């Protein structure tokens, strides 16, 4: 019970303080809207926001899925081959330093105005966490276990299938959970690139240009809630696909 009451209480105090601060003239509401203006925008603009949310959430979910597949495959390749590790790993790390606002317009020119460039942006910013998480999971395999498999006459492929793949699975989920926050940011920035015409990121930009700050903050609230929800969904999926890892983690945190 405390787990729910305490954060809600804290949130209420913070929102209350914010409301009072704006109402008492601490800041111009055109610069920093009060909570009740934000709430009003959430209600009044619900049709527009819902429509934009669907666009953005589709980009995020598909982007993370693509990143999970590509990241997992790359992690396995790096794990299996020293040569790949030496050749690719530094490039993967370097790719993370390319700022999205620079990358996004180029991708639009290259891949067009559809969902594809946004997907690619989300996938690029997400996939590093998934590669690292997967590699981490692969590295948790006990060397003694690999020796045991050799004396059981298991081939490399069989060992991978029965031992390393399941061991890596929780790492994939950990990586995806870490990637949730950056993936949302990536989608928003991609939607603000020239030529983009939809999604929550596009609407944020529009609200800034139209002097509708309350709508802008409302969108930020939606993005935050969506990130928490996606994180929760991934946790559920992990419980379903890798229940053994969930049990271990659960015991530790108790």
């Amino acid at each position, binding site marked *: 019970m405390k787990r729910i009451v305490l954060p809600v209480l804290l949130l209420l105090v913070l929102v209350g303080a914010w409301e009072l601060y704006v109402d008492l003239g601490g800041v111009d509401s055109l610069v920093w809207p009060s909570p009740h203006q934000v709430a009003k925008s959430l209600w009044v603009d619900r049709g527009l926001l819902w429509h934009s949310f669907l666009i953005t959430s589709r980009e995020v979910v598909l982007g993370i899925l693509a990143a999970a597949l590509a990241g997992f495959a790359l992690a396995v390749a790096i794990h299996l081959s020293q040569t790949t590790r030496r050749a690719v790993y530094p490039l993967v790390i370097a790719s993370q330093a390319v700022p999205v606002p620079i990358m996004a317009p180029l991708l639009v020119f290259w891949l067009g105005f559809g969902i594809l460039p946004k997907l690619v942006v989300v996938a690029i910013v997400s996939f590093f966490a998934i590669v690292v998480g997967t590699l981490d999971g692969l590295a948790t395999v*006990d060397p003694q*276990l690999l*020796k*045991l498999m*050799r*004396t*059981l006459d298991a081939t490399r492929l069989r060992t991978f299938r*029965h031992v390393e793949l*399941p061991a890596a699975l929780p790492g994939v989920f950990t990586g995806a959970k870490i990637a949730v926050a950056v993936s949302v940011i990536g989608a928003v920035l991609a939607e603000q690139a020239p030529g983009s015409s939809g999604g929550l990121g596009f609407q944020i930009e529009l609200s800034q240009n139209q002097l509708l700050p309350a709508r802008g903050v409302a969108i930020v609230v939606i993005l935050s809630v969506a990130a928490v929800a996606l994180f929760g969904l991934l946790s559920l999926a992990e419980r379903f696909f890798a229940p*053994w890892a969930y049990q271990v983690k659960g015991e530790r945190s108790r």
Partner: protein
Amino acid sequence: MPAKGATKTRIEAPAEEPLAFSGVAVEAVSRAYGRTQALERMSLHVAEHEVVAVVGPSGCGKSTLLELICGLQQPDRGTITTGPAVLMPQRDLLLPWYSAIDNASLALLARRVPREQARAQAAPWLQRFGLGGFEGSRPAALSGGMRQRVAFLRTLLAGKPVLALDEPFASLDAITRAEMQGWLTHVLASEPRTVVLVTHDVEEAVVLADRVAVMSSRPGRNIADIDVPLPRPRRRTDPDVVALRERALEVLGVPG
């Protein structure tokens, strides 16, 4: 990479030749890791279906010896001749994502036996090993003794004549360990195998083995062979067991 001039012989018993050697012959084997000499002219002979316990101070190269026997490492010098050997590592290392029966039949899965067939093959063994009713349990739901029994069954179902057991009961509490020692004696009576049992527990060695090979501290080599010509099952309080235990401890230089 074996050192220059190294001789290594490895005889894997071919299936069509049932009379192939299924004991263990380690002849004057040396093995070093960088500048650390783990084994120095170590010799060990185990006849078919003989149970030999290897005891020695920690760090004397006991685990290295088992890995050499299993073919996981090659000696720098000396020769090793052995039938196909399977390793049972110190910890049970059961796979948390597989049930007891899938863990027990891991050797079959490793050989691409279809899962249903592997289960069918393993099921009667689980019954025999007192694991009936726990086939579908994940390792986390099993007690320490049960996990160890599954791990031993996994070793046995590899179908190899030589078992290399690396302190299999070291992680168990005293009561469970005593139970498991009795259980292993019982199992080996009906399923005889050539066993090399590494342990730091001299009492366990005397209770379980036909012979106790005592190793020196690093670099490890065999400094004494103590025969244990006692009937089984043995009690640790039996005066003969106690006397042999004292002798082994004496060789190890531990004051009684």
